[in-house]
């Protein structure tokens, strides 16, 4: 089964293949993000790289969806109303069913202390906004290995 090349752009042909190995099973990624424009942007980037995308727009919805859908990875915003990304990450890490799902935080809080807080709450990585799309895909692929 393919884990490596799903959604990777073939630079020579400049075409996107869902999976160069013919893998039909797309990896499922949950985006928890309250800003619709950013959610749409991340969705577009991930979909064009061959991922199946789920979108949640508030923290509680994200946790429910994670439990129900069991995504392969979660891209989690930090600054959200009601329940912020740190709290969402902690909740997910405390649930047996979601605790092993890797989390990448995508945050506009760029300070060192925020990064530390994100990693402490259970995220694998912390990317600051505005982000580089290639860096995001690179990291997602790394944690999906």
């Amino acid at each position, binding site marked *: 089964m393919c884990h490596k090349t799903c959604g990777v752009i073939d630079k020579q042909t400049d075409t996107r293949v869902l999976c160069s190995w013919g893998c039909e099973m797309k990896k499922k990624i949950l985006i928890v993000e309250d*800003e619709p*424009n*950013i959610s749409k*942007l*991340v969705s*577009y*980037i991930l979909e*064009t790289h061959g991922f199946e995308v789920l979108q949640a727009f508030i923290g509680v919805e994200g946790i429910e969806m994670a439990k129900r859908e069991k995504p392969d990875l979660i891209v989690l915003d930090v*600054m959200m109303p009601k329940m912020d990304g740190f709290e969402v990450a902690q909740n997910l890490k405390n649930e047996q069913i979601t605790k092993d799902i890797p989390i990448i935080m995508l945050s*506009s*809080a*760029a*300070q*060192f202390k925020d*990064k*530390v807080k994100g*990693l*402490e709450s259970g995220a*694998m*990585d*912390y990317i*600051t*906004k*505005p*982000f*580089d*799309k290639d860096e995001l895909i690179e990291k997602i692929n790394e944690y999906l290995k």
Partner: protein
Amino acid sequence: MNISNEDPTDKNLKILIKIARCINSTLDIDTILKYLVDTVIKELGYDVCSILLKEGDILVNKTGYGLTQQELSKIRIKFGEGVTGMVAQMGKPEIINDVSKDERYVEFSNKLRCQSEMAVPIIVDQELIGVFNIEDRRKNAFGIKDLEIITAVANEAAVAIRNAKTKESLDIFNKRLLRLYETGKHITSSLNVKAILQRIVDTVADTLNCHMVSFMMLKHDHLYIGETYGFDAKYYTDLKIPLGKGITGTVAQTGIPEVVGDVTKDTRYIPYKRGKDSSAYTPIKSEICVPIVYKGRTMGAINAESEHLNHFTHEDLKFLSALGDQAGSAIENARYYERIKNFNKELKHKIDEATIKLKNTNVELERLNRIKSDFVSTVSHELRTPMTSIVGYISIMADEEVGKLTDQQKEFMHIVMDESQRLTRLISDLLDISKIESGKMKIDLESVDLTEFVNKFKVKAIDMAEESKIHLHINHPSEPIMIHGNADRIDQIFTNLLSNAVKFSESYKNVIVDIQHKGDSVQVDVKDEGQGIPKDQLDMIFERFHQVDSNMNRSVGGTGLGLAITRHLVEAHGGKISVSSEEGKGSTFSFTFLKNGIKPSVVAQESKTQENLLQKAV
């Protein structure tokens, strides 16, 4: 009268020689007087003999034969009073053959019942010093011979008594001089006005042996009680004597000391009451008063009073004047000291007040700074959200993921991307500056191998240089160089300075980075061949929002914060940063890091667990 068969002239001569020899061998006045009286009685056989000495304008009986000590002590005769007083006044001897027929006669003792009296003045250099008084129970007891011998004895006695008195007054003078010296030493070394006044009134009371002493201070043409002896100053707190009023007021006004022998005859005298409720006035008879003058300015007066008439002498006046002079300078010194002390106290109070104000201001400033830094932090987050969309969607379009672009569209897309990145950098820099200014910038220092860091950094640096077609040379020692630092922040320092060097260089020029050991430090020089920095702007280049004023700066896209942040980061590492430049030839930025084992002067700490987590994550 003769009591032996001896030739009276011979006998009298012998007595006279004996007396002279004896009284001239001592300077003690009591011994002299006692010997005189004893010898006269023993050798000449009279019933009563006494010697009265002049004290002021009265005669005081000092010694006598035939009278009890109690009777003697009562005898105080005014000039012109009785036979003795008359003799003293006239300066001529008198013989009274029957006292019952003389109205002036005053009986000293009624037990003896004397009927005749002889009084001889004791005179030396035309000055009366006393009276020899002799009485007998018989009538007509004294003849011309008696007068001769007693006059001779009186003359002999006069010299001896004067000598003894001179000695006595010399003793007093010496004692007072010593007193003056001691008091002077004490008061001039004291810095407390109250203590000085206390010491002075005590000294005056003790030395002049008087009943009341007051030290009056002059203030706005009025005298106020400074310190007292013999009466309670608390009853006189509102006493206020105008200049020129009373004896003290007169002395303070004229500056001339005065001795008043009988205040009851001086209309200026103002009597004191003994206490607040008592209507009884003190039975004061005589007074002495001297002004306190310092450098020509009257400061007050010392006033001493006695219940005896004519208690104070001119010797007392000299003593008091000398004491007054010392008091003047001592008080002035103490006042200066107190003024300085008060001034210091006031100054300290003012400083304390200002310090409190400053503290409050600081608290307020800190609060405002916190609000500002919170604001910047919030704004920075808020700006990042739209920036994320802009950069994200533009980069998708620039990559032609959603459709082919014309060359011009591509160029414009890249301009938007570059400017968006610049805006993002500005947001980060603003956040950094805000943290630096509010003291919140915390940098965790650990051991970093600078050589290893540079090897990694080279990849990024070469990319940066190639993009602008700059020849980059990085020279550094090959062995590990361990320094105190924070890898992220070191990267920020190198990136800032190198991107500056590249930005301000034209294509195909050189940028050279030199890393070398310098004692306890490592020095890094970043040298470019750009336009250089005008001399007058070199000092300001590390200030925030300062950009070198040239035609070029707008096209290179800086934020104006990079060097300010860089300087802070270098200093937070315990290093120093400097710049040298020559216009048209290029600039060199030099900065240092402390090697391991050298304690940096500025160490910011964050918890170890956070550091470990980060390392794990990276």
